[in-house]
């Protein structure tokens, strides 16, 4: 039987999460967030919901899925709350619960992490192809959409941002050991 509150579980699942209780509701996170305007609740709002025990509202919120891990909120938070890390915890919880509004976020994450596991780093060209082939095949038959993506791809290539061959890091096995350990931790009941 689990007598912990939702708030407690989020705190426990996040390194440094105990600092969450000292949130002042000042809004530096919401103001600093590049995706703040698209979120249905700003991080500060999510923390207020967490404190109030609104589990469903939190897990069905799009907020964690719009987090781009820039860490601007975390570096500016006057109470030194690991905000970005809490967003990761919430994403994990939402996935385990099968309870999230934006399936594409998870579907995008899967091929991304697949490349990281195989090669130790992201491979954008492969990621874009794989994501669209498996999850959005119709994009290939929409001329405007296809053209726009092509233009962006060409632009990125011109700036050396889209290499066509994947690269692999040295000592990949060590990274894989770390990732396996992380997965083992993630599979613990704290996310269940």
């Amino acid at each position, binding site marked *: 039987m689990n007598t912990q509150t939702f708030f407690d579980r989020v705190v426990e699942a996040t390194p440094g999460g105990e600092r969450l209780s000292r949130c002042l509701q*000042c*809004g*530096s996170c919401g*103001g*600093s967030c590049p995706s703040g305007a698209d979120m249905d609740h700003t991080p500060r709002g999510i923390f207020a919901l967490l404190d109030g025990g609104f589990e469903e509202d939190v897990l069905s919120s799009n907020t964690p899925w719009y987090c781009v891990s820039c860490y601007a909120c975390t570096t*500016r938070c*006057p109470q*030194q709350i690991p905000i970005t890390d809490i967003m990761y915890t919430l994403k994990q919880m939402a996935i385990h619960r099968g309870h999230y509004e934006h399936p594409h976020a998870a579907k995008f994450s899967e091929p991304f992490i697949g490349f990281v596991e195989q090669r130790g780093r992201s491979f954008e060209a492969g990621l874009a192809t794989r994501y669209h082939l498996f999850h959005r095949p119709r994009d290939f038959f929409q001329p405007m959409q296809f053209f726009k993506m092509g233009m962006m791809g060409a632009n990125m290539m011109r700036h050396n941002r889209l290499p066509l061959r994947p690269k692999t890091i040295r000592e990949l096995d060590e990274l894989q050991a770390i990732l396996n350990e992380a997965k083992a931790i993630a599979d613990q009941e704290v996310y269940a």
Partner: protein
Amino acid sequence: MSENEKRVGVYVCHCGHNIAGTVDVEHVAEWAYNLPNVIISRDNKFMCASTGQEQIEEDVKEFNLTHVVVASCSPHMHEKTFRNAVERSGLNPYLFEMANIREHASWVHPDDQDGATSKAKALVSAAVHRVLHHEELTPMQVEIRPEVLIVGGGVAGIQAALEVAEAGHHVYLVEREPSIGGHMAQLDKTFPTLDCSACILTPKMFDAGSHPNITLLTYAEVEQVDGYVGNFTVRVRKKAKMVHEDLCTGCGTCWEKCPKKVIDTVFESGLGYRKAIYRPFPQAVPKYPVIDVETCIYYDTGKCRACEKFCPTDAIDFEMQDEIVNLEVGNIIVATGYDLFDPRRIPQYGYGRHENVFTSMEFERLVNAAGPSDGRVVLRDGETTPQSVAIIHCVGSRDKNYNGHCSAICCMYSLKFAHLVKERTEAEVYNFYIDMRTIAKGYEEFYDRVLEEGAHFIRGKVSEITDATHASEEEGKLVVVAEDTLIGKQRRVPVDMVILAVAMEPRADAEEVAHRFGIGCGDTGFFTERHPKLDPVATVTEGVYIAGACQGPKDIPDAVAQGSAAAARVLSVISQREVALEPVRATIDEEHCSGCRICNTMCPYHAIDFIEADSVSRVNPALCKGCGTCVAACPSQVISGAHFTFDQLIAEIDGIMVDVNIDEPLVAAEMV
């Protein structure tokens, strides 16, 4: 007194739930009967209450106790209380020992009741074993010099100086800058009444400068403090002003003729200029100028001397040297004030990058009628009146990345700024705040007034101030980005001018100054008072008091109140004429002293002299603080510290080592 004749009473305090909530106090009191020479052992809800103290007095008489142990809080808190109780019962107050089972047991082990109880028993055992070796001691009475040193000539220091001087005692007021007045002299209006800061401060400055009982030592710093309450010797360095004050009339010809213009980063916060020979502001006290040798042309090139040429009274002296003054005083009040937070440390606020981001002190100078813009609210170009102004609260305050504390004054001065902008321009004003704190008399009413004047209040800590525009209405403006937390949306507010309400910080050299005066700095770096509620202006060093913002952020009324409070404390000490010094001092067994003089140099208080005639060292009991350095250093082991003798310390260690789980008399005790 033989060992068997010693009769100890033990009192274990509950301190309400503070101790009894964790430590089984009844069991500790019961168990204490196992300790040597314990005649009576009791527990009590509050030993510090009069009933607790009276219990000691009654028991001493009824059971003929010779020694007393109280197990309760820190000696810092109540050692004096219980020594007085013991003294009232007819015993020497030093035949008493305190075991700290609150800070050292219940408070630090709240989750381990058994462990905390065992520790309390060990601490009680240590105290009982120790007290059996205590000796009668008599405090030394020393005379108190009536002169008072006040360090810092801000409003708190000035207030304290005037109170002491009015009472008829002499005050030395030491100020680092060329004039007294402090930060308050820079301000324009004061909240919430909006009276002019200079108008209310300058009369006090003038009084302090002309009072027959006050000696002003401006452009001076305290270098060393020796001695003890009643008899401090203080070395003050008077920096060379290069101007003879006895000749100077303050006519101003010198700074008019001085060709060297310097940006005034102190009084004008970098917005205005002064000359290399300067008086910080027109109402300065004393009215005499000083030469800043760092910027003076003569000290750089060997030429110029314009001021000297034009001085009608020949008051300029380029060869003047720093002067060392030794003062003899009985009490010291430290009122060294605060520093303002440097907002360059928060890069996203763009101070120093965006020219129209101002600090609060810069804005104070701007709105000051005697300031660089004659009181007009204008942008850094000195001409344009802003159409919109943002005031950012909590810059460097309430932020664990910089200062965790609330600076206490920013909400109110930000409201004052909002009012002044509204009064002098047509601009829209936006206050960005986390929480509004308007906690003193008339403050909430002032908030109300500013709300009625139409200032906007946006609840959200500002994330950044940027000139990167997203929309046409942002062109040429500074954009303040924040979440409006009350509507849960990001906002971008374009404004012409941003004012950063910067934090009050401890002085950069606060720690060094604290060390010089034998006082402490807390977590936040401000000086520590002896008790946060009941003794707010005293310090752990007898005879040294603190007042004003050096103790913590505070506004003018609070700083003035503390100045008066510190003066009252000093006056009460002076009126006692003499003070009792703790008899905890070192003594040297001169018969066995080899005269090696090691202790002479080790003593941090210069309390040990070498007596040439007898070839031995001798402790000056009035200077000795009982620190024990010499006791440890003496190679012949002939120095002993009263109340900290070898016997006492060894007995204390023996006591703490007893097995607290054994429930039988440790040494045959005479039971009642």
